[in-house]
């Protein structure tokens, strides 16, 4: 990068400009480490004005930029682009305002997810979206990815909890999307910005909704011989008209890994179900008995209810550490994030088992069973030539299976760099072209995180074509994708 431009950047952020190769390596990838690109420079602004000044230079010089939070993303969304800069929001980490009567909190994008809950917990509130990385991931990153978590079954995703944003657009203007009051007249711009994976601009201030802590929380652990039995119990719970705060499932391989890693005390079984109910005390008491009865009917041979907050924390620690724990049982792994209609679970699980056996690669399954979000972990040994490629192929085939069942390629990790080639399998060209209309409204020059999410770069001058049915539609397999 020309020193003239670097000087201009330095004038904005001073020591918050990184150009040393050794330091740049920290930023060459996010949580998806098999994609790496060294950025030209990394900038660490401390204010909205800084971000605006940086983007103004990028706009003028046509330098692509990638915004980055804590770098925990699992789809390569924060992967730097060639000839581009990374704008890290890590130093914009102040909680600006807490409005308890209206249950709102205003934060900068670098604030850590768990710190929001920590700030409001003394008042009996919490911030509901709880990705497993919540102790390190940032709100800005959550906004970009529309992060979920185990409790989004009941409480919704990041987008449910973002009321308004201050955003620096790729043309360096500052705009305010939404309002801290509901139903602002106009298009739902927070709705389109949240989950746009950094392709529409950079959020510099975010108004979040916080939620009152439920009166009672109870967590039940049920051990089954198979994931099919556990799956039947999930169906039974839903059919009984209950909406638990979370329903999580782990298979034997995932349980082994979690045990080796954090000793959560899980029973050694073929399918483990973790059901959390919250709400008014008498209601939770009543429903936990019902859940317990349904599990027993479906073949559960051990049922435990966590008796204290400490016990509950340990139960969840095992689940939330499941990805990282894979390192205990396999040198390498690929985590996927497919979603299926929940009723397709038995069919998909047995098909994954068949595919896993055919490839000779182990697949551990951890999932948000209540909403059909699977996290199949394909285990492999990168030292064995060819195994990584086969593992990637297998994980892609699992996603294809999800799409064929009427599901999605990603429930919470985002498309990013990793799955952009899969978008064409889920959406037809006119669908993608229509999304591109939004992109071109915000970022006609494709400076914000270019090359991500979409399978090919569409120019904003290109015209969209008439409707052509998706191949899956023609085959009568899927009606609506």
């Amino acid at each position, binding site marked *: 990068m020309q020193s003239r431009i670097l000087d201009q950047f330095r004038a904005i952020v001073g020591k918050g400009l990184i150009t040393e190769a050794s330091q740049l390596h920290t930023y060459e990838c996010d949580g998806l480490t098999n994609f790496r690109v060294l950025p030209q420079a990394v900038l660490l602004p401390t204010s909205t004005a800084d971000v605006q000044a940086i983007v103004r230079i990028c706009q003028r010089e046509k330098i692509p930029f990638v915004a980055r939070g804590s770098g925990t993303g699992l789809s390569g969304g924060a992967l730097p682009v060639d000839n581009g800069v990374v704008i890290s929001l890590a130093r914009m980490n102040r909680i600006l305002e807490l409005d308890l*009567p209206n249950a709102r909190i205003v934060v900068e994008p670098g604030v850590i997810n768990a710190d929001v809950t920590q700030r409001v917990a003394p008042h*009996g509130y919490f911030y509901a979206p709880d990705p497993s990385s919540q102790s390190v991931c940032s709100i800005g990153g959550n906004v970009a*990815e529309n992060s979920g978590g185990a409790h*989004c079954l009941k409480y919704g*995703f990041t*987008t*449910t909890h973002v009321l308004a944003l201050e955003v620096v657009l790729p043309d360096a203007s*500052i*705009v305010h999307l939404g309002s801290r*009051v*509901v*139903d*602002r*007249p*106009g*298009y*739902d711009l927070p*709705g*389109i910005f949240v989950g746009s994976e950094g392709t529409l601009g950079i959020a510099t201030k975010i108004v979040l909704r916080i939620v*009152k802590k439920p*009166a009672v929380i109870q967590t039940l652990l049920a051990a089954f011989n198979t994931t099919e039995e556990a799956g039947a119990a999930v169906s039974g719970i839903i059919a009984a008209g209950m*909406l638990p705060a979370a329903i999580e499932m782990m298979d034997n391989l995932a349980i082994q890994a979690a045990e080796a890693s954090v000793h959560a005390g899980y029973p050694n079984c073929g399918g483990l179900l973790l059901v959390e109910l919250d709400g*008014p005390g*008498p*209601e939770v*008491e*009543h429903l936990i008995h019902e859940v317990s009865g349904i599990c027993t009917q479906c073949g559960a041979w051990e049922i435990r209810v966590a008796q204290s907050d400490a016990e509950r924390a340990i139960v969840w620690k095992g689940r939330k550490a499941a990805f990282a724990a894979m390192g205990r049982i396999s040198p390498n792994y690929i985590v996927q994030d497919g*979603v*299926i*209609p929940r*009723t397709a679970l038995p069919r998909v699980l047995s098909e994954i088992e068949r595919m896993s056996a055919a490839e000779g690669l182990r697949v551990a399954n951890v999932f*948000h069973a209540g*909403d*059909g*979000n699977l996290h199949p972990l394909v285990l492999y040994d990168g030292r064995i030539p060819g195994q990584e490629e086969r593992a990637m192929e297998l994980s892609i085939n699992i996603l294809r299976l999800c799409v064929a069942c009427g*599901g*999605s390629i*990603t*429930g*919470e990790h*985002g498309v990013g760099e990793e799955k952009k080639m899969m*978008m064409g399998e*889920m*959406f*037809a060209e*006119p*669908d993608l*072209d229509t*999304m591109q*209309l*939004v992109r071109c*409204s*915000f970022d006609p020059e494709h400076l914000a995180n270019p090359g991500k*999410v979409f399978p090919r770069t569409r120019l904003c001058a290109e015209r969209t*074509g*008439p*409707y052509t049915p998706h191949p899956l539609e023609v085959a009568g397999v899927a*009606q*609506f*994708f």
Partner: protein
Amino acid sequence: MRAANIEEAVEGILPHMVIEPGTPQEVAATLKIAKIAGLKVIPRGGATKINWGNLLEVAETGASLILSTRRLHRVVEHAWGDMTATVEAGCTFQTLQQTLAEHGQRLALDPLWPDHATLGGILATNDCGALRIRFGSLRDLIIGITLALPDGTLAKSGGKVVKNVAGYDLPKLATGSLGTLGVITQAIFRLHPLPRESLTLSFSTSDNATMNALVLAIQDCNMVPTGLQIRAGSASPPEIDLRFEGTATGCEAQIDQTLHLASAARRIASPPDVWDAASKLWNTPGPSVICKFSLLPSDLGTFLDLIQETSESPHLPWQLVAQAVGAGYIRLEAPNIDVLAPALVPALDRWRKKLETRGGSIVILRCPLPFKSKLDVWGTAGDALPLMKSIKARFDPTRVLNPGRFVGGI
């Protein structure tokens, strides 16, 4: 296709024809032809809210047509095991709920006029009611959409699964866009189980401050009401309705807790159909002005104070139904609009200023036609208006759809 009847006029403009396509593909093809022919298109569902928005920007000589979703009325699929439903835009809300109830489920939404309003129209106007305090608004319930665009594209976004972050969230963009970006032909929703029990209790409060304090106190404790509504008027003190759903024991425990909290209020018998109060607000024989307002929940009391103050002289009788999340409708009786207009305009201006400085809004939904031409029904759009216009220009560059009716003249 047929000629429009005189009753089908939209805010004084009689469209030249009505087209009722039978498939989403026909909707897209109709739009494409309209675009080429230079016709303006007014999408229409049940026509219950067809007059919402600014006056149509159709020149005297300009031709327009109504694109009705009447024939797109099917519940395409109720995947009850997955708790999702796929519905065509012209399906009425009531038809959908009846279908879902067969498997003990519902779309957890309570829009205006459920027997006539269609899902397409409800989405386009982002209409929701009391249930949103527990289940969120439409943006939290819609998971997939099919949109027909003016260039003939039929585009899908989202899908059939509750959790899905693949691509931009167009269902949210279309929700509340008043048919200015595309015509919704189909939508997919997440569902909730029908409640086992439902109990309502009501209170009367002495003044606005007491009412607001109680509404905030209820939200600041760990009860989970599925409705928290405020009714007030020039002739009556503010009343609060509260609804709990779930197991009988859960409801009873929360009612006990409420009675303890509400010691400053007087419990009253809940009027029948109290949760239809918002719909009923519109049933008025004489001319009236009806606005939607949104505000911070903590500003409800002072807003009511302001309404009282500004409606005393000249006397403007009013009635209001609000939801505790911070949105509601207010009706002002205007038997003689010409006489009242000089008082009404400054009053609305004052309310709007007060709400907008705190992030809220006032949108005028119903008013006598001559009055409407003198007003911006939407209020200030803020610094994101250029962005909204840019989105409109990409989706509908020749302004085929509902021209001029939306925020900032979009």
